[in-house]
């Protein structure tokens, strides 16, 4: 296939910056050619972290990476899943470990109940985004962790904000989901058909 970006001869972090530019340009799948393993690995890490699908092909002139942005990758995946999965993508944004403002005990109970309800719902969220103290739900709260694991089994993507995990010193305790960053979270939130914010 044609090369959209030729990043051969460029030093880190330039190949990643080229890929990032292409991704934020909003176009569809693109290909980028790099000539060393460090650049291949870095562009792959960037694409993975950004929720893209990456295919790598190596040849004697370098490595060709074919990168499919999250929306397209998601749609391809979704169309292969049975009709049980709704066509409209719902994203749940959880910015804290309790629901509403009031007694903490009640707030955390409600949050656990909400997550449980999600696992029983017919309209499964495509993604659950955890930010601020919301990351505690995937690290410290055993009940919430089991609901989130169940959601993950059912095909929901669980992402936790890396900066928040760092801030609360919880990075090593992540029990469910994966670490994400603001760049990807912004793209998940803005590509949602329906956003539920708690």
């Amino acid at each position: 296939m044609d090369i959209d970006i030729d990043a051969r001869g460029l030093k880190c972090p330039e190949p990643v910056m080229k890929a990032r530019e292409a991704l934020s340009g909003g176009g569809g799948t693109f290909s980028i050619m790099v000539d060393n393993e460090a650049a291949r690995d870095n562009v792959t890490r960037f694409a993975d972290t950004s929720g893209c699908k990456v295919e790598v092909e190596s040849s004697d002139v370098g490595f060709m990476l074919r990168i499919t942005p999250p929306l397209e990758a998601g749609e391809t995946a979704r169309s292969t899943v049975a009709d049980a999965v709704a066509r409209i993508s719902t994203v749940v944004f959880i910015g804290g470990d309790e629901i509403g403002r009031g007694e903490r005990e009640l707030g955390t109970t409600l949050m656990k109940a909400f997550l449980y309800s999600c696992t029983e719902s017919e309209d499964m969220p495509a993604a659950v985004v955890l930010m601020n103290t919301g990351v505690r739900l995937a690290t410290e709260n055993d009940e919430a962790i089991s609901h989130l694991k169940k959601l993950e089994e059912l095909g929901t993507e669980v992402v936790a904000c890396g900066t928040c995990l760092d801030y609360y010193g919880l990075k090593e305790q992540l029990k469910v989901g994966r670490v994400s960053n603001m760049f990807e979270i912004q793209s998940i939130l803005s590509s949602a058909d329906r956003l539920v914010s708690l």
Partner: protein
Amino acid sequence: MGPGDLQRIISRLPEDTSPELLSSIHNGEDAGVFLLQEGLALVQTVDFFPPIVDDPYTFGQIAAANAMSDIYAMGAKPLTALNIVAFPCAIGTDVLENILLGGHSKVREAGAFMVGGHTIEDEEPKYGLAVTGVVNPSEMKTISGARRGDFLVLTKAIGTGVLTTALKGGLVTGEQISEAVQSMCLLNREAAEVFARHAVSACTDVTGFGLIGHLYEMARASSAGAEVWAAEVPLFQKTLEMASMGMIPEGESRNREYVRDSEAVADGIDEILIGCLYDPQTSGGLLAAVPPDALDPVLKELKSGPCPRASAVGVVTGEAPGTIRIKSKGV
């Protein structure tokens, strides 16, 4: 060029031997050591590199702290320093002045003297120092004294390679990596004093080969193995996040290649975190092999003093020389 290439080239250089020569170019010691008289040896080192931060004064400070680090890693005291400068005509001379002022401030803080230097014209600026120090050979720290059961203590957090790459890529601001910048400016002097008080078995500084690369050199020179506890390795804020965004510098893969045949990684350790353990550092911390009975006081003195992020990151093992096992945590 990675550590492997360099080692191949150096191994082909003829080696000089003399009773006064206490170091060898072949064993990866941090600095050259020459015995002047009973109880007094000369210690020499040199290091220079292109700017890694935007502010010239700060760059000068980092380059100087980095160059003197080899002296401290050997338990020595810096006496004099020479500037090494490559500079393009197109950049204003005030920039160079600030770089040199920054360097000078650190040399003075170390109690040493800036005695001269040499400048050439070059497309890309580079700055560093050749540093001369002294040590009593009986108090000298080498990389070859680590013993089975010693704990590995690291005095600074890791991540300067990833973060300065992210700075170059515009993914972070200088403000966001200020923790790492301050750490790079910090002299390893006080940490070396703590290690001297407690007679650690071996010491090196963590720079271009990354934490694991330098540990590998220490393990081989000491005919020992080592276990690293990945979860205990302190990382600067935003390091993991930036590494996961593809901001790992090229040196990381060369470092990993260098150690690959001797390295075993336990299941379930994040690949990105392992990348950080191989991240080439600038003006990184000291890595010492600390006897078990000295561990508590060493950590306490480091943490309450110059190195709040100091941590025991592993242990020296009796495995085959150079064997590095990366686990999540110690038992």
